[in-house]
């Protein structure tokens, strides 16, 4: 795998620029995604982490053009190989979904067609997008089933999704995502519903496929250790914005934003037993009328007067990382002061 710096020179496959998504609801307009920018280069896996309601899934759906009916992109660009996807019609997007962008969902059972044989579902993409004949597409489906580790593919080809275990269904989803050789795969919590042993199998499979076929991933999850295993870079989202961004190890092991620090401290870890877990006080901000200044300031123990009034855009720090925190140096002090038993 090429390092992020070497790969960055090649230019991003996908570039999101100042994306804004609004949902109109009864209680006002929800600014679900509020000025998100990110780059994904070839062969790289980018993690997108945050709690429910942080806008991570909405960002993903905007990229794929599958926003819920009352949500729309109000400004910004989504550049795939330099071409903007935002103004495209659904039929134009349909030609891109599959051969260019594919998606893996959290619940394979609700994403798969329950009354269609698994093999035919995998073969459908190549038939529609690549113009394969029935037999050639079936050949391709069998080959993919082998690649994702589905045992006895000839027999499994004719099975229905309900005959598969959760892990096997997710392998089917991965085979479908790969079926048209996409450049980027969007993964929305693909292992959250799985057991830890099956999660381990699926993550290893994804890591291997990424390396073999040079496909890029955007990996949405709330699970920081999973990000550590899969992603070279990570962006942390809070209240519809990216608040910290950089190399995964830097961000997770040495955060420079109190929210990231809060996520790291509140999650129990098998290797580090803390005296007691430190929850993040309060609850996520309203996205109808977000707090002024830094959106995290009402829950932040480092907050000062300037956090309440100053806008907090991402600032570049040494080492190629960026943070939205005005007082980021306090995170390092807080981490150094902490008692952790390895």
């Amino acid at each position, binding site marked *: 795998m090429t390092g992020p710096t070497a790969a960055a020179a090649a230019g991003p496959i996908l570039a999101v620029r100042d994306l804004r998504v609004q949902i109109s609801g009864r209680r006002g307009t929800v600014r679900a995604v509020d000025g998100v920018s990110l780059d994904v280069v070839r062969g790289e896996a980018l993690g997108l982490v945050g709690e429910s309601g942080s806008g991570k899934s909405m960002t993903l759906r905007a990229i794929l053009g599958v926003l819920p009916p009352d949500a729309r992109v109000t400004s910004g660009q989504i550049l795939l190989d330099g071409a903007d996807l935002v103004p495209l019609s659904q039929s134009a997007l349909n030609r891109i979904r599959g051969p260019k962008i594919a998606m893996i969902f959290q619940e394979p059972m609700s994403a798969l067609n329950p009354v269609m044989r698994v093999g035919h579902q995998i073969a459908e993409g190549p038939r529609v997008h690549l113009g394969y004949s029935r037999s050639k597409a079936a050949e391709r489906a069998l080959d993919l089933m082998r690649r994702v580790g589905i045992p006895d593919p000839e027999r499994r080809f004719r099975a229905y999704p309900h005959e598969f275990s959760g892990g096997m269904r997710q392998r089917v989803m991965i085979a479908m995502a790969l079926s048209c050789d996409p450049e980027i795969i969007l993964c929305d919590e693909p292992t959250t519903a799985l057991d*830890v042993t099956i999660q*381990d*199998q699926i993550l290893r499979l994804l890591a291997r496929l990424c390396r073999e076929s040079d496909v890029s991933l955007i990996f949405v999850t709330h699970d920081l*250790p999973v990000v*550590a295993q899969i992603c070279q870079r990570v962006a942390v989202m809070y209240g519809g914005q990216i608040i910290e961004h950089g190399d995964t190890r830097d961000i997770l092991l040495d955060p420079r934003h109190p929210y990231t620090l809060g996520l790291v401290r509140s999650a129990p870890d*098998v290797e580090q037993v803390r005296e007691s877990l430190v929850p993040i006080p309060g609850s996520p901000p309203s996205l109808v009328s977000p707090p002024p200044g830094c959106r995290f300031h009402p829950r932040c123990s480092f907050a000062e007067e300037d956090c309440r009034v100053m806008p907090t855009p991402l600032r570049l720090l040494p080492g190629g990382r960026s943070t939205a925190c005005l007082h980021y140096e306090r995170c390092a002090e807080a981490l150094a002061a902490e008692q952790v038993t390895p």
Partner: protein
Amino acid sequence: MTGEPVLSAAGVSVWFPVGSRLGARLRNQQRLLHAVDGVDLDLRRGEALALVGESGSGKSTFALALAGLRPVDGGTIRFDGRVLPRRRSRADLRRIQMVFQDPYSSLNPRMTVGGMLRELVRVHHVVPSSECDDYIRELVRLVGLGDDALRAQPRQFSGGQRQRIAIARALALRPDVLVADEPVSALDVSVQATILNLLADLRAELGLSLLLISHNLAVVRHLCDRVAVMYLGRIVEVAPTEQIFSDPQHPYTRGLLAAIPKITDSATEFAADGGPAVAGDMPSALRIPAGCRFRTRCPLAREICAQTDPGLVAGPDGAVHQAACHFAFDSVTARVPRQRDGEE
């Protein structure tokens, strides 16, 4: 840990009939799914015991059986040394209370929190009716909610708050044992911590015995004194928490531990690393393998594993560490390469 067992299971089995009744009558026998298949486990007074395993291992069914919410098809459950009858009295049911995984579906949506707690307290005569209001107010404070929570309905609360209400409901009957089935897995990470801390505080404050069912070993390590690992309806290893993590004896336990992602992991190393920690899927409980039930996924499996079912045996340090593997506690391990201790 020297406490007497407060709750003790001996050879507990729970079966589910599967297939059609007609088919059963034609074949003159009912097919049975052995969800829990002979479990021996003691919960000592005041301890926090974790039950871990994959979904389908039978841990939730076992918990329901312990709490008296599901009849047992074999074996006995003792409470304070007394065998609990098949149909438990109201007084017995009170002693063991449960907190369920999903706080969205386990609370009555049409009742206020106060109404729900009041009904419980009245039906079980926990306190005289004149003290009822004070008692339930104290309960919601105990779980960290304000008095105004009593007048609200569950839908007005967040997931974490609902789980607090579920805990208050379980504690209302002053139980000796609290069985918590995946109490935090439906919650956001930042909220999980508050519920785990609450459970730890309540245990210390009220002297509860806690059986925590979880698939998350990190949660377990944080909260529990002992860990029991369950696989396909059986306990395959029991040990004090630190020993489970530092010196696991059963290959399944080792696999489970190796499968947990760590925040210190690096993507480059992970991608270069070899095969999965545990291969394959758990077999169906309708077709439990003969001999050792883990052998179909076990890297150590030998001929003996297909022939003899290894029971739980104690290690050299007495009964505290037990494992159900022919190769546990170095008995034969001299001849068997240890999996994942060093790099393969």
